[in-house]
């Protein structure tokens, strides 16, 4: 039992040091990402590029899914995983 606990502690010590390393690297590179965002005026992350409303959920058409033609059925896999835009976004904050 003690041996098992010692092994677990060792594994978690290694993982924690990896986490600290990854976090330091992430923070060091954060400045570069912020420069790219500011200089290019970016509004979205490039995670899913298959449809415009999942490539640019913040800046694409507010009713982009289902608008390829009236009554169109959503067919992009990532479309199932993105929320519709915030209703207030259309007419400015606070309205």
């Amino acid at each position, binding site marked *: 039992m003690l041996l098992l606990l010692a092994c677990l502690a060792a594994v978690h010590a290694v993982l924690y040091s990896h*986490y600290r390393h990854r976090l330091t690297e992430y923070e060091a590179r954060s400045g570069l*990402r912020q420069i790219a965002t*500011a*200089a*290019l005026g970016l509004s979205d992350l490039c995670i899913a590029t298959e*449809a415009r409303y999942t490539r640019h959920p913040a800046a694409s058409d507010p009713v982009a899914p289902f*608008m390829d033609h009236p009554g169109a059925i959503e067919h992009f896999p990532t479309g199932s995983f993105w929320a519709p835009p915030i209703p207030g976004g259309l007419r400015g904050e606070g309205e």
Partner: protein
Amino acid sequence: MNGGLTKHLNIIDYTLSSLWRRRARNVSVLVVFAGVIFLVASFQFVTGALTQFALDSLRTAPEITVQRLSAGRQTEVPLDYGEQVASIHGVREVVPRIWGYYFDEVTGANLTVIGVDLERMPLGEKLNLTLAEGEVPEPGASGRVLVGRSIKRIVESKGSAYLSLFRPDLSQASFAIAGVFDAATDVLTNDLIVMDIGDARDLFHISPAAATDLCVYVANQEEVPNIARKIAAALPDARVLTRAQISQTYQVVFGWRSGFASVCLLTALAAFVIFAWDKASGLSPEERREITILKILGWETSDILAVRFWEGALVAGGAFTAGCTGAYIHVAYFDASLFRPVMVGWSVIHPSLRLVPSLQVSTLLLIFCFTVLPYMAATVIPAWRSAIVPTDSALSGM
């Protein structure tokens, strides 16, 4: 040593030996349980990391973005709109931008083309720092582009030194690659082609009097909501998007995304609770005999309940530790490869994420509450039933 503590240490000792006696059954429960926790924890780590990524990276997004809608679709913004916005008190700068999508028929990839006047953008002079190779073209330099790493790979795979794109009239426009973005910015720039705004107009055949949207910068951050309201009032067909709304969007999309996944995972968890209940509720003759012997030896119902509690706690604790450890390794070392097909869908281009799993106490507590507590709740009644087995009835069965 305190008598109560000694008693509990002895009970734990007995519980461990009891677990070991029924190791096949307990290991099977632990493996299934650890698998469920692994899935829940992986989703929480991924969505937490992506949300943090978005909030950090988009902190410097334009304070206000103005688009124009026509028939429910985004359309070009006349540059006159920019002049109207610039006349609003408190607006520091209005920068028109051209951007759009380009579908590459050879690879089936959707590319994002951006044309912007870097001299007018904040931190535009520092964009060189984000490049792994090459440098930012001189302002107004035509025919030279900055590209994300995936675009570079696509161009190389075609064996060409130039990036060739087609205008709407199918005439060809060729661009030399002046620079490639660093891998550190992959999550923002992987599918980008950044060019001079005049080149982008020419590529998309957009009128010189129009732009895709306007980036608006204000002097006082506190005034952003007020100015956004004034823009919306002055331009009735405009869609006004503030930086705060972009952040909110990302909190919502990933929250919903993880919520959608959680529905599937909760179904798996419910199935597991039923499985645990079924395993724990049927007292085997061996268990019945064990309880009887313990009672004859003077154990009380509370002692047997304590044994059952520790059994559940050790199995659940072991599964929680194994599941969360596996989830961390899955997300940090393998970039959440099990979820990648769902996250990126049919995307041809996807970035290397290098996620930092969100190891916050709140995240771990949430996972604990969603997994360990239902298991403990599902086993408490069977444990109580096993503890109140009457000695005489059990003896008659021996």
